[in-house]
């Protein structure tokens, strides 16, 4: 958990030290190349701006992160968005665009090393096959690259939500093999908890900016600060539940599929042993050679469910706190 809360007012005090101590990133990620991600304030603002300009609803925005690797720290100093795709510019060459962009940035003396990418998310539903695949290709090409996930909805509620993820080495192995059969995954001993590792994020600003922030905080109205204290929860919670439910459904289906597969295989074993087959639910399936279902999807779904649960837990905990606070205030006023 390296999410860093940064209200409009709360600012990083010093440029070199981490202000965030709530992170409890996985200790086991020692063998990974990057232990910390240091993001420039500029990058954060650019990402937020990008989403606000182009993203809405379930639509996600993506972009490229630029920076440098310093020891075990990844410094992200700049970024640029991928252009918004429409149907009619199908022949748009993304790679070409990226190269162009990077060349141009180099001309103005900005870091031009590709160190990852960012993506916005809708209620935390980012653990998908697409993300896995692209992050795999990034990490395969540039070992240190990370993906930044920006959750605009949470941010709008008052707490900046920005997280950096990397695929675990184990998952990298599995992806390299491209074998997602149950056996392979079992051998790799991979579970949904060990798919992504979160990397600590530090937001670093220059002193000048910090000073400006202090100034701004003084000027800002009180109401701006208290978005945090909104008691309306049902909408957000409902959405989360809905999404969670959808995933659970998917999971269920996946399990049923797997179950059928298991039944078929065990039936075949039984047949080879001359025992009567188990009661078959659907006879037609018996004659197809059982195809081991790809388990990666269910892993991803499990991961997603996990994220949702965490989100809900976090959200409800905060909300409960707020409610108690409101109650106390009420009593105090009376």
């Amino acid at each position, binding site marked *: 958990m390296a999410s860093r809360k940064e209200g409009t007012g709360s600012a990083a005090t010093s440029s070199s030290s981490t202000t965030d101590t709530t992170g409890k990133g996985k200790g086991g990620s020692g063998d990974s190349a990057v232990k910390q991600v240091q993001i420039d304030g500029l990058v954060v603002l650019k990402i937020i701006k990008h989403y606000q300009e182009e993203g809405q609803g379930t639509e996600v925005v993506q972009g490229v992160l630029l920076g440098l690797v310093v020891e075990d720290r990844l410094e992200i100093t700049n970024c640029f968005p991928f252009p918004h795709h429409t149907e009619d510019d199908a022949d748009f060459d993304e790679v070409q665009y990226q190269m162009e962009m990077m060349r141009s940035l180099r001309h103005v003396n900005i870091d031009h090393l590709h160190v990852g990418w960012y993506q916005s998310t809708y209620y935390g539903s980012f653990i998908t096959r697409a993300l896995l695949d692209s992050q795999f290709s990034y990490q395969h090409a540039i070992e240190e690259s990370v993906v930044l996930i920006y959750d605009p909805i949470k941010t709008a509620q008052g707490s900046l939500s920005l997280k950096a993820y990397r695929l675990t080495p184990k998952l990298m192995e599995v992806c390299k093999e491209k074998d997602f059969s149950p056996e392979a995954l079992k051998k790799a001993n991979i579970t949904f908890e060990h798919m992504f590792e979160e990397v600590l994020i530090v937001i670093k600003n220059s002193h000048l900016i910090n000073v400006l922030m202090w100034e701004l905080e003084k000027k800002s109205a009180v109401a701006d600060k208290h978005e945090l204290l909104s008691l309306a929860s049902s909408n957000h919670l*409902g959405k989360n*539940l809905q999404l969670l439910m959808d995933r659970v459904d998917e999971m*269920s289906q996946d399990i049923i599929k797997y*179950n059928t597969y298991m039944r078929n295989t065990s039936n075949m074993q039984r047949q080879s042993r001359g025992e009567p087959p188990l009661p078959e639910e659907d006879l037609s399936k018996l004659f197809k050679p059982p195809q081991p279902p790809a388990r990666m999807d269910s892993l991803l779904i499990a991961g997603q469910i996990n994220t949702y649960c965490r989100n809900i837990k976090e959200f409800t905990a905060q909300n409960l706190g707020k409610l108690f606070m409101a109650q106390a205030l009420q009593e105090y006023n009376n």
Partner: protein
Amino acid sequence: MSRFFTTGSDSESESSLSGEELVTKPVGGNYGKQALLLSEDEEDTKRVVRSAKDKRFEELTNLIRTIRNAMKIRDVTKCLEEFELLGKAYGKAKSIVDKEGVPRFYIRILADLEDYLNELWEDKEGKKKMNKNNAKALSTLRQKIRKYNRDFESHITNYKQNPEQSADEDAEKNEEDSEGSSDEDEDEDGISAAAFLKKKSEAPSGDSRKFLKKLEDEDEDSEDSEDDEDWDTGSTSSDSDSEEEEGKQAAPASRFLKKAPTTEEDKKAAEKKREDKAKKKHDRKSKRLDEEEEDNEGGEWERVRGGMPLVKEKPKMFAKGTEITHAVVIKKLNEILQARGKKGTDRAAQIELLQLLVQIASENNLGEGVTVKIKFNIIASLYDYNPNLATYMKPEMWQKCLDCINELMDILFANPNIFVGENILEESENLHNVDQPLRIRGCILTLVERMDEEFTKIMQNTDPHSQEYVEHLKDEAQVCAIIERVQRYLEEKGTTEEICRVYLRRILHTYYKFDYKAHQRQLTPPEGSSKSEQDQAENEGEDSAVLMERLCKYIYAKDRTDRIRTCAILCHIYHHALHSRWYQARDLMLMSHLQDNIQHADPPVQILYNRTMVQLGICAFRQGLTKDAHNALLDIQSSGRAKELLGQGLLLRSLQERNQEQEKVERRRQVPFHLHINLELLECVYLVSAMLLEIPYMAAHESDARRRMISKQFHHQLRVGERQPLLGPPESMREHVVAASKAMKMGDWKTCHSFIINEKMNGKVWDLFPEADKVRTMLVRKIQEESLRTYLFTYSSVYDSISMETLSDMFELDLPTVHSIISKMIINEELMASLDQPTQTVVMHRTEPTAQQNLALQLAEKLGSLVENNERVFDHKQGTYGGYFRDQKDGYRKNEGYMRRGGYRQQQSQTAY
């Protein structure tokens, strides 16, 4: 000579046989025309007259014709084959030839054939093109004909010198033949006959070409007479003893077998044309019958021709002096019947003949037995009149048929000593021995059943919107009367099985008719003295309900075939339903268990079943039992093929999917128009029932994610209504129902009512019910009640409490009804509320879960199923690896339900050791 040919030919001809058959077939295809060209045949019949000589010669000419045809199509193989046959036939005719001299036509063919072969032989190019069989046959035939012709050299030369001779002579001989079309044919024969009489030797070659041309002109002719050819070749083969030849002739012979009757019939048809001659043929025929045993039809046939002039003189069925006895009449009858069902039989003539025979029989006082027997056959012939199953009887035929059956019934009723039965053998029939009871083979029931089917067919094929249909429908009374008579007759004499069958017929004519008299009687209970005479008369007829009851009960008790009983039950239910005896109808339907196994029945029964279900549904609706109505109609309506399922028309959509044959079959299954159930009424009843069920249900389960549809059809209509970009006032019945549903959703019963019951809907639907007003009152009440329910479901969350009196005013229902409806809703836990008796108010409870709670509940449920599935996976793992599969399975089952976790643990403990 024939010997010479038999020795010379066999190998080649047999080898070429297979190829041959194919070639000859197209020629054979022309036989179909045969029946139309009656005059030709007749001529043939007449021309070959007098003696064995002519018979033989005709054989020869026929063969020759075949050869000429084969020559025309350059089919040498065929030529060879026929040539061999010709040789044989000639050998057979040897004795006559010896007497009369070599026939000229025979010489001519020999000469022509030789010329033709030479020509072919010279034509090197053509020869190359020829197929192998033909080429081989050509060389063989050429050699043979050379050898053969040596014997006839003098004749041939003679012929060639003098090819066209006194045709007139022959024409004179055949003066009876008046038809011009046959002149050429005549000529040919004439020439040959004349020529052979002359027996001249020496003839110049080269004229043959001319003949060939001539033959081409005769094309039509020769085709027409091919029949005869086959006839003759056939008889040739049957005459000859050599097996090999018979094999060769197999195809023509079989054709002969088929064709032989045709020609007879053609003859007969021609006969009919000349009415005065009508009877002589039978004379001939009877003669022939005698001769048939001699296995020599051909010969006999010619002799009949010989008898021609004689026949002319006596225009009677029987020879002049013949004493009309039973035996003779029966024999005649059999003769006529033998032609029955054969191709080319002129069926109209046959019927006429039979009628004539009846007349003769009655004139000669042969007794009723014979008359009955012949009548049976007349009716049968009437049915046979249309060879095609799809076509229907012409009105005059139909009338004739009805009359005939009526007459037959008259006789049967008048003569109780006549026994009629299918199982009486022809031999054991007793037609005239008056001392003993008369026994006649035949089944009156079958005839009547067939008559009924014909009636259905007529109705099916008449445009239902024409006056004609009405006219036909008037016959229904007659049909019913006949069935009733048969029923009475069989009740006395028939077996139970027969009675069942005739009862079923009766039922089938009764079940769909609404008994207005009984209905009237029910409405106006007997007032004793005030009964007018008319009423009396009306009441004389048996109440159709009683009748149905009686007939059906008999069938239930006595029938052994499932089909009749099934039909009877269905008709009975239908009848009950039609007369609004819902509970009887429903009980009968449930007790019969027809719903379980109706899909195994044949399509007509299934159609009847569908009709019954629909009628049942409509009946339920009339009684105000919307739910039952909906259930009964669901199957029919949800398929969207109600029209097809009820046998009331074919769907255009599936027209491409079926072929002609299927379509015909389906067309035959159609229910006649006067039995139709109004489809719009059906749909309206269904939709209104669905509306009354669905709208409150939808309101009650607004937020329930697992809400299912009661009626897909209804939802479909709603969606269609929603999709309309511009919503005008409703036009069609469906639009009315959709508009009414929308009003009901709001609890606006008045608007709903005005949409469901108005002028348009009355005209379209409601007035079609026998008791329209009762139905309408019921409907209004239903709408009020369901609207009230909908209103409470939809708006209960807005109220803290609501006075029942207000509700009663709003929905114009009396207080106790409102009270009972609300109580019911509370009991069923549809409405979370309680009644406050003193103030007459409904107090709402807030127990509905909030959106979040709902979601959470759903999630919990889903997780439950997820866990369950997961455990099953786990089971597999255990089973596969642990070897305790079976025990665990049991354990799992035992602990299913709320004890699942315990079960889960138990499994673990089991696997532990």
